[in-house]
C-alpha cells in the first residue's frame, strides 16, 4: 500500500504555553488545561499514517482534539509543533514548513474538506453551482461550459437536483447543503479528503444516504479520508482503522472492528458500552 499522509508528534496548544503544559495535562490527569499557565492543550504528540484509498476514523468526545487534528492538516490552524508529510505520486510536501502560497495550492489542488456546518464550507451568497465553480476556478479551469458541466455532474453524483444548481444554498435543507458541500469538496477529485462531523445534526435517513455516498466515492475514486466523528455508527460503517482521542492524546488506535469489539482503554470501553 502506498502512503499518502504521515503525521508525527503533532501538538497544538492554545494559549502562551509553559514547559509543564504537556506533563500536567492528559487523560490520566483528566484535563487538557494546564494548571500553571491555563493554556489549552488541544493535541499532543499525535502520530498517524494514512494510505491511499483508506478511511481513517478519529473518535472522541467533544473537546478531545479530533477537529484540531484535521484543521491543522487542512491549514485552518497552525500547529505548535510536529511534522506532517503529504505524498503525491513521487512528490513529498512537508506540510508545516510550506509558505502560504504553497499551502493554498495544496488546499486547492489536492485536499478537500467537509465541515459539520455548511456555513464554513459553502459561500451562502452565491449559488450552489457557483460554489463548485469557485473550486474549479481555483484549479485554473477557465471554460464556462466545462465548469457548468462539471458542476452539474457533481451535483448529480451527490443527488442534488440539478434544476436547483443556480439557487442559493440557503434555500436548501441541511442535508442538501451538506451534499452540496461534499460536491464542492470533490470538485477537483482530491486524493485526500477531510470530513469533520459531516452527518452530525442530520436525520437518520439523510445520514445513511450521505454515508453511502462517502463510501461510494471512496470506492470509485480511491480517495483517502480522515473522518472525524463522535458517532460510533459512522466509524463502524466507514473507517477501516480508528483512533480514539481524549484530552488531546491518542489513547487507542487500531482496526475499527477490534476497537469496537474489544476495547482496551477504560475510556473506549465506556464509550462503546454507552452506545445505544
Amino acid at each position, binding site marked *: 500500500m502506498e502512503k499518502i499522509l504521515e503525521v508525527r508528534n503533532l501538538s497544538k496548544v492554545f494559549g502562551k504555553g509553559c514547559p509543564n503544559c504537556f506533563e500536567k495535562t492528559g487523560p490520566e490527569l483528566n484535563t487538557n488545561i494546564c494548571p500553571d499557565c491555563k493554556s489549552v492543550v488541544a493535541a499532543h504528540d499525535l502520530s498517524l499514517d494514512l494510505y491511499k484509498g483508506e478511511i481513517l476514523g478519529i473518535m472522541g468526545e467533544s473537546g478531545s482534539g479530533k477537529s484540531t487534528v484535521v484543521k491543522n492538516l487542512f491549514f485552518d490552524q497552525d500547529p505548535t509543533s510536529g511534522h506532517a508529510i503529504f505524498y503525491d505520486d513521487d512528490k513529498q510536501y512537508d506540510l508545516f514548513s510550506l509558505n*502560504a*502560497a504553497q499551502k*493554498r495550492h495544496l488546499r486547492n489542488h489536492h485536499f478537500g474538506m467537509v465541515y459539520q456546518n455548511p456555513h464554513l464550507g459553502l*459561500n451562502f451568497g*452565491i*449559488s450552489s*453551482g*457557483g460554489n463548485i*465553480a*469557485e473550486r474549479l*476556478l*481555483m484549479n485554473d479551469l*477557465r*471554460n*464556462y*461550459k466545462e*465548469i457548468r458541466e462539471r458542476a452539474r455532474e457533481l451535483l448529480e453524483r451527490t443527488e442534488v437536483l440539478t434544476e436547483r444548481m*443556480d439557487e442559493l444554498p440557503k434555500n436548501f435543507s441541511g442535508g442538501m447543503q451538506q451534499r452540496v458541500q461534499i460536491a464542492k469538496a470533490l470538485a477537483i477529485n482530491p486524493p485526500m479528503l477531510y470530513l469533520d462531523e459531516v452527518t452530525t445534526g442530520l436525520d437518520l435517513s439523510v445520514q445513511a444516504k450521505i454515508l453511502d455516498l462517502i463510501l461510494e466515492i471512496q470506492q470509485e475514486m480511491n480517495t483517502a479520508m480522515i473522518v472525524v466523528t463522535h458517532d460510533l455508527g459512522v466509524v463502524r460503517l466507514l473507517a477501516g482503522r480508528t483512533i480514539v482521542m481524549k484530552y488531546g492524546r491518542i489513547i487507542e488506535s487500531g482496526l475499527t472492528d477490534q476497537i469496537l469489539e474489544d476495547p482496551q482503554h477504560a475510556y473506549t470501553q465506556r464509550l462503546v458500552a454507552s452506545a445505544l
Partner: protein
Amino acid sequence: MTAMRKANAAYPFGFLDEYAKKEVRRTVLKAIAIPGYQVPYSSREMPMGRGFGTGGLQLTLSIIGEDDTLKVIDQGSDDSVNAVNLRSFIEMTCDGIDTTDITDKANLIQSRHRIPEKPLREDQIIVLQVPYPDPLVVVEPSEDKRKIMHGEADYSRLLVKLYEDIVKFDEITISHRYPTCINGHYVIDPSPIPRWDVPKLHQSKALVLLGAGREKKIYAVPPYTDAEPLAFDDMPFRVESFNDENGQRRCCDRCGDDTSFLDEFDGQGGEKVYQCSDSDWCREQSIAKGA
C-alpha cells in the same frame, strides 16, 4: 487671475510641498516597477473633498512641470464641472504650465471615467482618478485578506462573480471598473472607465497612472504592458455595443463618426440622441468631415 495668483504666492508650485510631491513620485516609481500593485501613500488633504479626484490631482501636481501641457477631462468632456474646476485649480497653483483641450497637444492628461479615443503616444502620461482601487472589495471586505489574495494572485472569487453574472443574465454585466489583470499577476480596478476603454490599457504606449485619494493608493499600467480583462475562455470579454435594433452601428449626431464611445441623450422631442462622449474627438471628426 493675476490677483488670484498673487494671493496664492505663499503656496509652492503645484500647491503641495516638495516633500509631499517627492513621496508621490517615489510611490509612482514603485507602482511602475510592480505593474498593477496598489502602492499605499499618505494622500494629503486637498482643498476639495475626497472623492472629487484628489488622488488624480495629487498625481498631476506631483509630476507636472513648467514645460508641460495639461488636458483635464471629465466623462470625456473638457467642459464639465469636475474638469473645469480641477483645471483652474492646477492653473492657479502651477505657474507657467499650458493647458489645452486637444488630446494631441497635451503631454499630461488627467481624466475621470474615460480614456481619449485618440490613441495616446509614448510621450504622453494619462492620470486616472479612482474611487475604489481594489477590485476584490466586492468579494472580500477585509483589506488584510485582500492583500494576501493579491499577493497570491488568488482571483477565483472574482471569477465566480463573473460566473454568477453569466448564470443570471447570460453575459457579464459589469459596465465599468472591469477587473483587469496587469502583466499576468495583479488584477486592478481600472477606475470607472467603461469596458470600451479597457482594451486601450493593453500594450498602451502611454504611461497610465491611477490615483485613489480617499483610499490612499497609487498604481500604474506601464507602457507596453499586458492588460487582460478577466473572462472565460468560451465567454470572451467584449466591449459595449452601439448597434440599434436593426444591428446598425449608431453614429454621433454631431460629427457622424461611428467608431467612438457614444453618450445617450434625450432630444428635444423626447427621442434618443447619440453623441461622441469624447468632445475633442468629436470636434476633430467634425473638422475632418467639413474639410
